[in-house]
């Protein structure tokens, strides 16, 4: 096995390099210093580092035989679980048994606390002030026993977060109803629960010179291509100490994507753990960003944006039908208004006679040329859509009424807009909603406008030229070294099984060609076979006995 060895080496390198990187952060004076054995000094430097923030809590508790040794407890209010804290940290300290140790030295107290007294789950010992500062920001609480130059960090994390709930923007009829939330640890747990294998690796990085956002790179060892990991790390390393912070996965996406000027997203974002799990099994990488439920998958192809979990949960005929439907809608959403424009203002010969006369009758008296009409109506629709999303929930119906009645019916009746145009715009709008991933829908919506202009000036030639330009762009795009338009250009025959149509699962013999070297997924002979005749009879006769 070449890959794991290679990977291990790489991982070691990573491990070594990480603390070095961390040292450069937390720009305050005390950051590099060690914990002093004078409690006062420690207290002051912590206070100074936080600028005496209101939510910083520093509490001294007396401990020891004569109650003469102070223990400093440091934590940040709101990031810790108060009940847990009092049960596992405060109570053990305050009830410190002093009968066995007559006059314990601070070190002895420290060790006693560390080894047996504290009832927290997770406890670490640190020597640097900087570690304390970092960790209490994560919701740890730090204990420093007076007279020692080390601290104990207790895991009492417990801040408010949204519970795991149904993904809002990517729903499925028959599929898991769990979505990511804003907390990275919860999100990784969702993934862990689905891939119960030690080879699922989670590498954590912190990004930003101020924000210290946590980012997890997740992959399955032995499936994922290590070159891609290196590429991801290189790109992240470039921005690591430059950006202030990464608050959104979209922000990270813009920093590390392949084609910054492309309308097409080359990184997929999703709030569904099952989608990420599927991608991990194909040898892809997931990048989780703390603070956002939308997590990233790299490398990705165009086809993945058209895929929904629904394709896999339903029977494969229906799954294939859905796929085809989505590709068709993709094309409709991209080109329908422009085809309408091209045909009504250039190629009237391409419509059947009755249809052409009906369209001509509708456009009778419409003041704008078809191209302007299409452009205007599309923009009106975009405004309606945006308003519909941003609006307070209660006002929602009002917008649809205004949209339908005023824009639709009144405009058609007044003869400002042809009825056919409203049908076209409506159909386009519906078709553009069918994409399972929102970001590809945005690409389609943006590209629609230039194609309308092309259609309005050069007809079908313009549309063809526009589509060709998109095709050239798509075939030249790469997402982390993987051709974006795979498996259509280049055509990868073995990957076509999961593209335009979905093959049944037992036909998924290989993994995608470009993402992994470990390409064989399963043997070819998994097609279910009905029971042999005798066995069937036994089953049927069962009730008679």
């Amino acid at each position: 096995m070449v890959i794991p060895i290679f990977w291990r080496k790489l991982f070691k390198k990573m491990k070594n390099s990480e603390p070095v990187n961390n040292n450069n952060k937390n720009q305050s004076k005390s950051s590099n210093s060690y914990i002093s054995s004078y409690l006062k000094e420690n207290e002051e430097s912590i206070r100074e580092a936080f600028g005496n923030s209101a939510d910083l809590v520093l509490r001294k508790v007396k401990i020891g035989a004569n109650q003469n040794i102070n223990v400093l407890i440091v934590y940040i209010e709101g990031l810790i679980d108060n009940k847990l804290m009092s049960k596992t940290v405060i109570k053990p300290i305050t009830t410190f048994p002093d009968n066995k140790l007559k006059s314990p030295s601070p070190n002895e107290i420290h060790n006693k606390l560390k080894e047996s007294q504290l009832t927290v789950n997770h406890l670490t010992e640190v020597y640097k002030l900087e570690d304390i500062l970092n960790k209490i920001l994560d919701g740890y609480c730090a204990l420093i026993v007076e007279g020692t130059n080390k601290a104990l960090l207790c895991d009492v994390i417990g801040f408010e977060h949204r519970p795991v709930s149904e993904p809002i923007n990517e729903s499925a009829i028959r599929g898991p109803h769990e979505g990511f939330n804003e907390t990275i640890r919860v999100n990784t747990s969702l993934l862990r629960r689905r891939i119960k294998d030690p080879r699922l690796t989670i590498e954590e990085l912190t990004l930003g010179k101020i924000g210290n956002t946590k980012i997890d790179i997740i992959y399955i060892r032995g499936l994922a291509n290590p070159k891609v990991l290196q590429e991801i790390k290189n790109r992240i390393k470039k921005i690591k100490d430059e950006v202030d912070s990464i608050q959104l996965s979209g922000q990270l996406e813009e920093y590390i994507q392949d084609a910054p000027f492309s309308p097409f997203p080359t990184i997929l974002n999703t709030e569904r753990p099952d989608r990420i799990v599927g991608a991990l099994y194909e040898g892809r990488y997931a990048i989780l960003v703390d603070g956002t439920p939308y997590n990233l998958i790299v490398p990705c192809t165009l086809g993945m944006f058209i895929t929904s979990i629904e394709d896999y949960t339903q029977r494969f005929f229906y799954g294939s039908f859905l796929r085809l439907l989505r590709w068709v809608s993709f094309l409709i959403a991209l080109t329908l208004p422009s085809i309408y424009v091209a045909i009504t203002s250039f190629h009237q010969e391409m419509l059947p006679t009755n249809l052409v006369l009906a369209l001509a009758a509708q456009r009778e008296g419409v003041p704008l040329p078809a191209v302007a009409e299409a452009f205007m109506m599309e923009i009106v629709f975009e405004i309606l859509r945006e308003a519909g999303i941003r609006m307070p929930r209660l006002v929602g119906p009002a917008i649809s009424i205004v949209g339908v009645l005023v824009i639709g019916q009144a405009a058609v009746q007044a003869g400002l807009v042809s009825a056919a145009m409203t049908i076209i715009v409506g159909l386009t709008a519906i078709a553009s909603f069918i994409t399972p991933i929102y970001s590809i829908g945005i690409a389609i919506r943006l590209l629609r406008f230039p194609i309308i202009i092309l259609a309005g000036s050069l007809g079908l030639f313009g549309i063809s030229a526009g589509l060709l330009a998109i095709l050239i762009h798509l075939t030249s795009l790469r997402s982390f070294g993987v051709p974006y338009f795979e498996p259509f250009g280049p055509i990868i025959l073995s990957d076509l099984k999961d593209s335009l149509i979905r093959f049944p699962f037992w036909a998924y013999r290989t993994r995608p060609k470009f993402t992994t070297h470990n390409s064989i997924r399963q043997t070819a002979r998994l097609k279910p076979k009905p029971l042999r005749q005798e066995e069937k009879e036994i089953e049927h006769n069962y009730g008679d006995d």
Partner: protein
Amino acid sequence: MLEHGKISARQLFFILVLIRFVPVMLLCTYSYTLKTVQIAWLNDVLGVALSLLYLYLFVRLCKGFKDKTIIEYLESNLGPVFGKIIGIILVIHFFIIAASDARDMGETFTTTIMPETPIIVFILIIVFLGANAARNGLEVIARISEFTVPIILLFLFITISLNYKFIDVKNLKPFYFPQGFSELVQPTGSILSLYIGEFIIVGMIFPYLNKMQKCSKSVILATLFTGVLFVILCIDMIVIFGPTFKTLSIPILSLAKLIFIANFIERIEGIVILSWVLGSAIKIALFLWATAVGTGQILKLKSYQPLIYPLGALATVNSILNYERAADFINFFTGPWIVYSSTLSISLLIILYIAQALDKQKVKS
């Protein structure tokens, strides 16, 4: 190496199929050379057979190139002066094909769907798109052709198959040559010259194949495939248009315009227009790429990309200025081109033999 991409043998197949499709779909000079319609398919068969022979010899010689393009190979074996002269001739040949293809496409659009639009608009846009694809390298060109050729084939299939109502098989008879066998020369030459004149580009693509030993297979297959398809297409034209086939300037469009089924499937020329744009732009891209790479190799440049847009501009100008009338274009492709292209291809074969002999001598000594 100037080009870093690698393409597969299958992609080469699709590229070659596409190259041959474009002149058939557009303004068709072939039908202009026909004298007796009902034996037109025989010209196809003869042309393809002769091309197969030529291409077999040519690709066998290509195998000696190893990691060089035809231009580098000739230069390294025939000496810088003579090699460069031949290289320049080849580059000009590729350039002419790109330019005339642009003109062919523009001519087609202005005679059919948009007569009032100046031809330069079509040529400019298509050449720009082609140049854009060419800038992205051979890999992208290969991928686009791989994606579009099946679509174009599908469209072609639709166009051919939906006209079954007009088919009259009797039009294929009689099989005889009223003016003797000499009437086969011009149409066969027209097909042969297009095949061998344009498939020379294999010499440019050859070093960029990931499996070079499969090259001859895909070239031969592409020739056979297109050959069989053209025979089918030609027979379809004959049985549908009968004697009027030779009068048509764009037979494929006429074929598509005939489709009329159940008052519903009719007027589907749109798919032909889409094929025109896709096909010609990719072909122009390929030949612009070959021109640029060839120029880059002759001048020993570090990259060819900066040459693409200027060459595209030149091709646009060339395509406009070369032919004043559509008749000039047709005359060129039914007469001088056949002689020029065949002479060039055949003498290139001889030169390659000499170069190979010199190469072997060099290896020995």
